[in-house]
């Protein structure tokens, strides 16, 4: 299988995304330029982190209108796997491919540290094969990661099994102090109704090697391989 990484002006997580897929997973991966109008021949899309268009106005607000976004939406509508990380998550919410919004962290400060996130569902291509309840240690690095949706919508997200990751402590508990940005209901990542589009604030693509602090991000990035397995088997 082959990953595509969408590169916007101001993206800065593209390097890590490419490296983690290529070196961490040993999979093929290609960058996709924001001015292109086709995603080309790829099986999964990764929208990386960074400060697309400087994050001016609102994170992701300007990037969602890039020429490539039409193709990204189409890819998503076909039910194919799309993963938005950090700024990529913000872009996907701005584009309406994911519900809710990401607001300034509750403490108003950028925050870079390793956190724990609990996998809530294995129904998405990026959590396939990971037992719900599994705790992954991943870094965060953002200033606008407070997930917001109105209470009714949050209830719907829960009911529809759209919450994919929650911030917890290392034992998987949503304890006081384990929510790094004030997100509603500790939400770290969600998916669309269909489950093929996933967004999360933590950075699996920066956790692909024990030497740099951890490799548990590979489980998220690699889960999608299993997604294609049945096809490969046919």
């Amino acid at each position, binding site marked *: 299988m082959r990953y595509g990484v969408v590169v916007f*002006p*101001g993206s*800065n*997580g593209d*390097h*890590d995304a490419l*490296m*983690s897929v290529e070196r961490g997973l040993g999979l093929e991966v290609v960058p996709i330029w924001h*001015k292109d109008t086709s995603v080309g021949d790829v099986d999964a899309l990764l929208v990386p982190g*960074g*400060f697309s*268009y*400087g*994050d*001016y106005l609102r994170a992701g607000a300007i990037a969602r209108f890039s020429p490539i976004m039409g193709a990204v939406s189409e890819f998503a509508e076909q039910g194919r796997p799309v993963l938005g990380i950090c700024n990529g998550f913000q872009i996907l919410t701005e584009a309406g491919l994911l519900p809710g919004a990401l607001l300034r962290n509750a403490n108003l*400060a*950028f*925050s*870079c*540290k390793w956190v724990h996130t609990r996998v809530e569902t294995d129904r998405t291509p990026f959590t396939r094969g990971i037992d719900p309840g599994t705790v992954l240690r991943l*870094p965060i*690095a953002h*200033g606008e990661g407070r997930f917001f949706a109105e209470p009714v919508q949050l209830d719907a997200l829960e009911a529809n099994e759209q919450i994919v990751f929650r911030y917890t402590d290392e034992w998987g508990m949503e304890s006081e102090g384990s929510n790094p940005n004030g997100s509603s209901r500790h939400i770290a990542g969600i998916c669309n109704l269909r489950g093929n589009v996933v967004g999360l604030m933590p*950075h699996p*693509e*920066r956790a*692909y*090697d024990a*030497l*740099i*602090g951890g490799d548990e991000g590979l489980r998220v990035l690699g889960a999608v391989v299993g997604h294609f397995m049945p096809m490969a088997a046919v």
Partner: protein
Amino acid sequence: MTITDTALREVALTRDEYAQIVLLLDREPTPVELGMFGAMWSEHCGYKNSRPLLTLFPSEGARVLQGPGENAGAVDIGDGLAVVFKIESHNHPSAIEPYEGAATGVGGIVRDIFTMGARPVALLNSLRFGPLSQARNRYLFRGVVGGIGGYGNSLGIPTVAGDIFFDDSYSGNPLVNAMCVGIVPHESIMRARASGVGNLVVLVGADTGRDGIHGATFASVENPEESHRGVVQVGNPFLEKLLLEACLEALHVDGVVAMQDLGAAGLTSSIVECASKGGLGIELDVARVSRRETGMTPYEVMLSESQERMLIIVREDGLPTLREIFDRWDLHSDVIGVVTGDGHVRVMDGSDVAADVPAVFFTDECPTYVRDGVESPAVIAARQQNLNAMVDVAPAEVVPTLLRLLGSHNICSREPVVRTYDHTILSNTVVPPLEGDAAVIRIKDTSKGLSVKTDCNPRFVYLDPFLGGQHAVAEAARNVSCTGATPLALTNCLNFGSPEKPDGYYQLKQAVAGMAKAAEALGTPIVSGNVSLYNESNDGPILPTPTVGVVGLLDDVQRHAGMAPSVGDVLYVLGEQRATLGGSEYLALIHGLVAGSPPGIDLTKEALVQSFVRDSIRSGLVHAAHDTSEGGLLVALAEMLIAARAGLDVDLSRIAALNDGRLDRGLFGEAASRVLVSCRPEQARKLEQAADEAGVMAIRLGTVSGTTLAMTGIGSVDLSALTDAWRSGLVNIEG
């Protein structure tokens, strides 16, 4: 001569200097020329006071590929790669507008690195503020930290190390020094030397506005708040990111012969540097410069310090490819001029000549001043103060004193600052900030790693500039050695008060001499640097602060050390066992004194201890190391235990005995050449033997275990109390 004093003050030139300009030109300068001379002959660009002193620095070495004189230094790290690095100040702009001042400081140093063709891989920052008890200092602190993070995070370059220090003298005159480290294959190193008559001069990046006009001169006068107040520069990290990517591509275009960023003194400085380094001339037309504002004069265009701009010199046949790259990144590329053979910098405004001056007049003819320095009697008196007369700390006071030191702003955890800096981006960070004495990053596609740190204890420099200069170099290098890396080379930023005052000049001269001596002794050439003088406010000059940045190399990045021992490890203190209270944090915090002679430093011993620590880390004997700096042995020990989340039973009587029986000196006194290390218990004998063979004194402190620090005959304290004290220092800096 018709020139008025006001006109001269505007460009910060003296009447003598003006006379010299007239003599050189054999006529009066035009207004644009005068502005250009003012900028180029400022301390900031021309190094009028520091140039003669800087020749003292050793700048050569087997690995040095590029020493001072280019945008940054370059050092060979094997595998065909070079590390490119430099530190630079943005003190004056940060005093006016802390967020933007610090942000544009980061932007400027990053441009210096990619101008050399290197991809930036790490940022560091060295900060100095007045006490946070004052609202203005809190405002500056928050703004500066915000700006550093804001710009660096957005660019996607990890901020991995630095240092922060507080002292009254920085109230109203904070120091913001930013360092950037990049990596480049040898053959891609780019220089800022114009070549090829007829080649085109292309300006790329941001539009030019009236930002920061007179920034260079403004950095060279006292009390900037009251004198020149140019328009505050606002940085655009988004644009810089595009510029960075586009320039690193442009580098490979056949026909690109030079790159030069636009920093202080904007277009003026870039054009002059490129022309004079290449021994050629440049003719440019200001009318071709894209503007952000209407009605700008040639003077304003030539002196604008608008950020995120770059000058590229390219052969005509390379232009289309170059343009294609910048178009793809949505950046404009304006051909503004051409390289000429007459050695003149000629500024046209359409068909009018606004300036026409041989480039070397701006550079080689810049006057230099060698002054007489005299040490301040007050400093001599402070240094000579007899500290032996002081009452020793009572055993019962040791724990409360330790807790106070751990919570003091100069010692406490930098976590609240470091959290706001992205240190994980680029997926190279092996030892992140707070987890080691210096940061370690890996170099992808090799087995190697780099270790980086900035340091300077300004109190030592104040009390004894020659000794303090040596300490700055030794401490920075020691921190790097504590990760297992071999210090390769240095960069430095000389932050001082006015050199026109005899005691200020004395400090500068002596500190430079001390740094040179230590750099020589430790085999670490100084390959780049920056000078920031006139750091004075109404309350007087800052403490002299020659910040040193060190880059070290790990051949095998897997074999590195952090500062956290494991439970069960045996702790040792290595090297110098006699400490000094002079200039210590203990003396300042507990006794309110900045006095005494700073610790002596035996550079041979320093080199020995550092190499022993490195070797022991490489051989796997030592797996955690931490040098003892502000707060002395006990603070360093506590910091290691906090990192280990474990306690220790220790008998410190031998330490006290080695310090004439004084507890204060033994536990809180400071020393060079002293490092705490930990090793597995089964290797303890081996480490002791190795130390013995190397001639390094090693005192066994005990085994890491439990949750209290228990000191025989002194008392004990819970790890949680130590941790809380250390963690709380910079939390909740409000108002």
